[in-house]
């Protein structure tokens, strides 16, 4: 699988602007206008034009396997069933949209896939590992290595600047300070925010904040990206940019993405759509790539 990180040794020295003033011209796209044609799809139209044909489940290995999963929440004396025996598979490199009305269980399913919640029954296998059996500590460690999170409200740490926010997941690794810096800069370049790395969340627009959040999600080069309504708090233009960015991560870097949305336009950027209603899978959506293309 392609990664936006060259191996540590291959990392070009010039890629690492340490301060805003030090930013070298050769370090890559710095502003929207500087983005080179060879750097990949950048605008929505370019992205659509470059989309590969949909990968089929037959030619892709299964990354996530949800097997008859039930989830019941206990609220005081009440038991609230949220997922009622869901089975679904997500292939490696897939871009799956989970759709459905509020309360249909799509966020719960996403949380289970991401390992931040546990099913009441059933199995969840990610990359062959049954994560629903992991201890809490093991699950945290697994998330650090394998999952990148993108939230609706960005959820950046307000006291840290963009660079430091993106660096957070790397603090859990054994990378040196220099290596961390290189990874952060690479991730920020992927989301075209290399020139905003020392800005605090309050100094960024909503779209920029979400792009920083995406950089934070991809900085560890995770196996799986999970996005919960990533465009829910953005205007149409910014939403489109974020969706294009996700599509690019999927197309160009072959990131497996599971995205919750109730916006059909957003779902069109995904390769596949799954509809949930009242905790049940009502429709295994066909390939939406055709629609995207």
């Amino acid at each position: 699988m392609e990664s936006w990180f060259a191996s540590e040794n291959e990392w070009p020295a010039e890629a690492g602007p340490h301060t805003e003033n030090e930013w070298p011209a050769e370090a890559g796209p710095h502003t929207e206008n500087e983005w080179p044609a060879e750097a990949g799809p950048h605008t929505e139209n370019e992205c659509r034009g470059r989309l590969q044909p949909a990968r089929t489940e037959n030619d892709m290995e299964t990354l996530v396997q949800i097997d008859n999963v039930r989830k019941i929440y206990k609220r005081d004396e009440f038991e609230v069933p949220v997922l009622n025996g869901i089975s679904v598979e997500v292939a490696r490199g897939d871009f799956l949209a989970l759709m459905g009305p509020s309360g249909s269980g799509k966020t719960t399913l996403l949380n289970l896939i991401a390992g931040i919640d546990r099913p009441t029954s059933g199995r969840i296998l990610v990359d062959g590992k049954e994560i629903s059996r992991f201890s809490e500590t093991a699950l945290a460690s697994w998330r650090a290595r394998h999952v990148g999170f993108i939230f609706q409200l960005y959820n950046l740490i307000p006291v840290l600047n963009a660079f430091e926010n993106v660096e957070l997941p790397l603090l859990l690794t054994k990378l040196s300070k220099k290596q961390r810096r290189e990874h952060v800069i690479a991730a920020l370049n992927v989301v075209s925010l290399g020139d905003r790395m020392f800005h605090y969340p309050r100094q960024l627009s909503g779209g920029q904040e979400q792009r920083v959040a995406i950089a934070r999600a991809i900085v560890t080069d995770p196996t799986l990206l999970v996005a919960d309504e990533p465009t829910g708090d953005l205007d149409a233009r910014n939403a489109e940019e974020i969706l294009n960015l996700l599509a690019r991560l999927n197309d160009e870097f072959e990131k497996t993405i599971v995205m919750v949305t109730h916006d059909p336009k957003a779902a069109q950027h995904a390769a596949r759509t799954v509809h949930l209603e009242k905790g049940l899978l009502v429709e295994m959506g066909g390939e939406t790539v055709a629609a995207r293309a």
Partner: protein
Amino acid sequence: MKFSKLIIRNLFRNKLRAALTVLLMAAIFFFVATLLSILENFTLFSDAGRGQNRLAVQSAISLANVLPIAHEGKIRAIPGIVDVCEMQWFGAYYKEPKNFFANFAVDHKHMPAVFDDYQTSPADFAAFANDRQGAIVGPELMKRFNWHVGDRITLKSTIFPFNPELTIRAVYKHPIDTSSLMFHMDYFQQAMGNQGWVGMFWVKVKNANDMNAIGKRIDDMFRNSTDPTETFTEKEFQLNFLSMMGDIKLLFHSISLCAIFMVILLAAITMSMSARERVTEIAVLKAIGFSRGLVLTLMLIEFTTLTLIGGIVGVVAGRLVYNVVNMTRVTQGFLVNFTLYTQPMITCIIAAFAVGVVAGGWPAIRSASMSVVDGLRRVV
């Protein structure tokens, strides 16, 4: 530490709250360190006679009761005793009640042998000894009242019905007691009509190892008399003397504990607010892989750092204040050579750390234990 930036930024995310918390901690630990240092000061004072092999013999009933002077000869006959000196707490002030200080009538003939840690030149001591109304005074007291050798002063007693008129004949040197005044026992006894009573005896013992045995022998000697005695080492006596004002140690420790308890509650409120504001952020940290233990550790480090800063600011500021302000003068001799001592400072810094752990423990545990899903769902 790679998490230091996160800790420091969180520490000062609400600058006003952090500053007020530090100030609160500083004020409380300044206060507690002062109380503990006062006790330390008393203890140092009670240690003034350390190594002097002195025993204090007082009435078994209380220090306020007197003993017959006739006891002195019997005590002196006990083997192992170097000398015995009569002493009477006089309890007088100079001119106004606010000018209260320690003053005693002493038997000047036996004073040099028993109180050989009080240094003065032989000529000065002779001048004191040869004047029945002479007084020997500590240097701090001389400075406080701007006295000079040769000055005539009148003390006003709060206990006895006479006001001695004294001439300052000598200034003594002593490592700790710098604010006392001593005058002749003969003068006191004559003024009181030679009734044959005295407040207490100080006994100088030849060998430190014999002190307990000699003390017991003295008490045994008078146990069945009409005036039984109770004998203490000098340190025990000084602490007993202080306890006449109530159990100061217990009182000060109780006040200190109350102050620390209050500061724990206040810090807990502040830290709970701080943790509550960050429920979602903590959930995000946990989602991206921060373990419960790591979140707990980071929060505890943050909280204890805040209280530690407060504690250190409080005791360091206190040390500076007391080094500048002459507390002997301010307290009119109640506290001699007072400062914040190292031991109370260390105690306060440890207490500040403990306050951080205790006050921050519950909010940190609660935050770290909250499920990621609940944390992300929470609207703060």
